[in-house]
């Protein structure tokens, strides 16, 4: 492996579905899917299609100021993103977003799945 000094690394915080904060580092040019996989982050079923734009399991929600500066979305990404559960105004697919220096210390949120939402509804019904 080539040696990268820590100054080249970009820190990303992931807020997981259960609210846990996972912090990981990546190199410029790594996709957010790369970051999750390379750091073995505990995000269930993330990146099922291995970044080929054939699923929406790497759906992430970005902070406004980060979202605005992201590269424009392609039609292919849009097709898959449209199918994602819990879509927001600042949603993108993690496999298409590559790290830039300006993203250092950003926080991204892993959206709930349908099952998660159902469970929280059930639990509030019981309380």
């Amino acid at each position, binding site marked *: 492996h080539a040696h990268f000094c820590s100054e080249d690394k970009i820190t990303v915080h992931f807020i997981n579905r*259960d609210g846990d904060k996972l912090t990981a580092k990546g190199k410029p040019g790594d996709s957010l899917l790369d970051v999750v*996989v390379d750091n*073995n982050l*505990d995000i*269930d*079923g*993330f*990146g*099922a*299609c*291995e970044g*080929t*734009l*054939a*699923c*929406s*399991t790497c759906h992430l929600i970005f902070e406004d100021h980060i979202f605005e500066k992201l590269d424009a979305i392609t039609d*292919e990404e849009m097709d898959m993103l449209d*199918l*994602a*559960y819990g879509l927001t105004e600042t949603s993108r697919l993690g496999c298409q977003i590559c790290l830039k220096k300006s993203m250092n210390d950003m926080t991204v949120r892993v959206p709930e*799945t*349908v*099952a998660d939402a*159902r469970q929280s509804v059930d639990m509030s019904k019981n309380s």
Partner: protein
Amino acid sequence: QDSRCGLTGAGYRGILCSLPGEKKEFLQNGPDLQDFVSGDLSDKSRWAEYKGNLKREKGERLHLPPWLKTKIPMGKNYNKLKNTLRSLNLHTVCEEARCPNIGECWGGGEYATATATIMLMGDTCTRGCRFCSVKTARSPPPLDPQEPHNTARAVAQWGLDYVVLTSVDRDDLPDGGAEHFAKTVLHLKERNPKILVECLTPDFRGDLKAVEKVALSGLDVYAHNVETVPALQRKVRDPRANFEQSIRVLKHAKEVQPGVISKTSLMLGLGETDEQIYATMKLLREADVDCLTLGQYMQPTKRHLKVEEYITPEKFKYWEKVGNDLGFHYTASGPLVRSSYKAGEFFLKNLVEKRKTKAI
């Protein structure tokens, strides 16, 4: 070589030679690697003693319970099958989806009892479901027009009397590959009219004309997997798939080909409740699905869903009874049962023969 303890092959042999006679004998007669990895499945009394956690807690990853450990496939028949497939450029779902039964099904006795599920239309799917490790791409390579012919030839070479054909999703093709499927069945039946063919199809995006094409191709069993209970469909499957659509596929196959046997499959252990499983089984029976298989979900790679629960062999047997009581012709239920697991095929073969003689 074992790089962890720093021994090379030569170093290891050297150590062996320097052992006293009795130790050497002990090493030679004692357990070898194969014994360790075989998992000792035959000792079923041990399963009840298993004290490991079966239901996943937050942040945990469950360990594999003993009843799910299988032998590493090896042997002449296994290799023979593998070579036949390779030489004809065919793909099996057994390999692509890392099925734990591959050793058992492929290695079974003479060729005639060996079973493989052939995957048509390549090894690359247009969807990325969270439970499946088959490769994915937006535009997989074009279909091999020789495939229907090659498949028929390979199956004839094997002398198989029951073959399962399945495929990846091909949302990139206008008919989802239905014509290709149908052609394969036709060729198979041409070469051997007695052969029993089961097709495990995609949902063709709900295109019922495509379903019809396959259903009328001459097959004996029409299978399509609902995969999980309705509440978990969105979490487990690609969003382009859903329960209602899958039910429609199964119903339609029977509508256009009343003699056909329909079949579906459920994976357990993804977080479903008993109530949900029962309700789903009822829905399936109401849709006149004939055969049901239930198996344990196993996480194929770290990019896929974690196992939420390992269901015990006893619980699987319970679901088998429920299925039988609900009136399915056959319920194959067990941790390692998969849609085309060999045990079901034997029974189905009898069932189809029964139906044929009844019809006469």
